């Protein structure tokens, strides 16, 4: 589904990713972990198509297509979803209207029939229940004045509605209390399916108590320096990142 080869990315001439290799197959859940400043969020944002980042080398294939040639909205229409670390507050755009527009924009692009008002309402109700969001938020401006937890639920609701093939969660767990963490992980677990993949970017292991990953990758200094299964996450939880840094630095020194 996703093949990242030797990806190098810079922002304002500073190299942040220095050769990432990663393959994600349908149905898999990959966790990307790493200390602050290791490039985790950069990877997530490059996948979603943020333009400030300059890809200096390497390639990303998504379902056989050159992802880097696709516009932001084309990526979303092709089934890529990024749950934002800091969802943008948009005054004046009602959450309900926004959700309806995105669902139908994606359906239209995928050649599927757009939903009518009644179908849309049914779908909205179903997914709202799934993520445990307060229906009143639909009438409010998108993300405006939402609490941290409400913003995350709103992101999960969008993910549930758009039914992506590849969902990327960028530090979605940051700032969440245990209840909100449960909401996020329940949403992800309910959406797990053999044809859908997840990339979960997180600093902490605790989200992975709820979402059990198939692979854990540790990013440090712009490279994946270690990959393993879920036990690697536990090891990081116990021992922190220092041993990884030392290991990586000694390899780099040689």
């Amino acid at each position, binding site marked *: 589904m996703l093949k990242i080869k030797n990806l190098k990315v810079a922002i304002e001439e500073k190299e942040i990713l220095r050769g990432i290799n990663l393959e994600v197959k349908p149905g898999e859940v990959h966790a990307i972990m790493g200390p602050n400043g290791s490039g985790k969020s950069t990877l997530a944002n490059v996948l979603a198509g*943020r333009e400030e980042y300059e890809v200096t080398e390497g390639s990303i294939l998504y379902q056989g297509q050159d992802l880097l040639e696709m516009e932001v909205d084309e*990526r*979303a229409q092709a089934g890529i979803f990024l749950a934002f670390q800091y969802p943008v507050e948009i005054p004046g755009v009602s959450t309900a209207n926004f959700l309806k527009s995105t669902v139908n924009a*994606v359906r239209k692009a995928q050649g599927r029939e757009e939903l009518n008002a009644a179908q849309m309402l049914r779908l909205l109700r179903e997914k709202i229940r799934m993520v445990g969001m307060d229906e009143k938020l639909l009438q409010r401006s998108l993300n405006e004045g939402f609490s941290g937890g409400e913003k995350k639920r709103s992101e999960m609701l969008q993910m549930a509605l758009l039914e992506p093939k590849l969902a990327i969660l960028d530090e979605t767990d940051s700032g969440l209390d245990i209840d909100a963490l449960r909401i996020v992980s329940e949403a992800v677990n309910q959406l797990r399916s053999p044809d859908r993949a997840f990339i979960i970017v997180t600093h902490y292991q605790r989200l992975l108590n709820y979402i059990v990953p198939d692979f854990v990758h540790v990013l440090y200094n712009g490279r994946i320096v270690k990959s393993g299964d879920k036990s690697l996450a536990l090891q990081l939880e116990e021992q922190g990142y220092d041993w990884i840094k030392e290991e990586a630095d000694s390899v780099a020194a040689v």
Partner: protein
Amino acid sequence: MSTIVQDRYTDARARFQMLFETRQNRPGSQGSQVLEQYQRKAIGLLETVNFPTRRDEEWKYTSVNRLLQPDYEVGESLPLSKADIGPFLIPGLDCHLFVFVNGIFQESLSDTGSLPAGLTAMDIAGALADEQARPAAEAALNRLLDGKTDAFKLLNAAFSQHGLFIRAARNAAVEKPLYLLHLSASGDKASFHNHMNLVAAEPNSELSVIEGFFELPASEGAYFHNQYTYFHAGDNAHIHHYRLQREGREGFLVSNVEIEQEGGSTYASYALDLGGRLVRNNLRTRLNAPGTTTNYWGAYFAKGEQHIDNHTFIDHAVPHCVSNELYKGIITDRASGVFNGKVLVRKDAQKTNAFQQNNSLVLSDKASMDTKPELEIFADDVRCSHGATIGQLDEGAVFYLRSRGLPDAEARAMLQHAFLAEAAENMKLEAVRLYAEQLVHSKFGE
């Protein structure tokens, strides 16, 4: 040595004077000698004032040169059917409808029968002959001609053919709004349309007036619509005034709206400016007694070569009054916009609360916006604030919307809509608000 500055627009003035003398079918006076006298007085006074130039501070950002170039003829009526005016009616709005085409009242297209007790609506000639209406009508005309005036107001007074006098009687809560629909079309020559409203809301009355300004579909050339509306809000009267404007690509619009408010009264203006080649709106309120509320909500959207200028003025002459003002707009392509919001808080106007905000999005390199908050405060115990911003769309928000699958153009349109919506959402009549949103929506499609 002294320099005499020649009026730059002497020729234009002479043409208007000529037009007044030679205008065909004279029912301009509505058959009223009294009105005729006022009209003659107005054209006489035109000799004493100059058309504004950009040397005038009030007209620094707007040149009337283009507007004064054409050799105008007085607009004529057109044979329109009810179907023709359908697109300009407000769906779901039960109203008293007054239709004007090129400034000429269209009785067959209007719905003015069975006005409720407490509401008077008649032509100004009629009002001048009506014992009850005359004092208010005369006072308003004298105010217009004797006070501080300008060339456009005088032209209006001279040329208005079917001016309206509207009165809400003491204690009357007029249930249905009045919709004054002005449709314009250019003729073989550029045409000149004038309309005057004199509105008196007596004490404790409530009244909603909607003015619509639209170009008829077949029209293409230049025309000039010159509007004057005067409101007098008596003690505790409440006036809601809507202006929806989508003049034509070559349409010129000058609108002067003047309000005087007595104690405890409310005046609210809800304005939407979408059309016109050159638009100048003057909205001026004078507060005569304490306890008043004045709200100005405005939205504008200029594309192509449009120029839209909103000049507002609130004169806090007395204490304990509140004014709120929010104007928001979008300027794109090679269009230009002006906002000049003057708030005067006189020495005695203690305990004044006056708030003003103007926000504009300027979306192209060739578009421009001049904004000028003008607060003059001579009292010391007041709460006043103003803010003005000129900016672009938040690219972070654009990215967010696009990352959910909305195409770039759609994402930008959604944000622009949201930006304008704030100024329109104050409209109290839902049918009008929805119609205004629809007008904005179609503007995006242009």
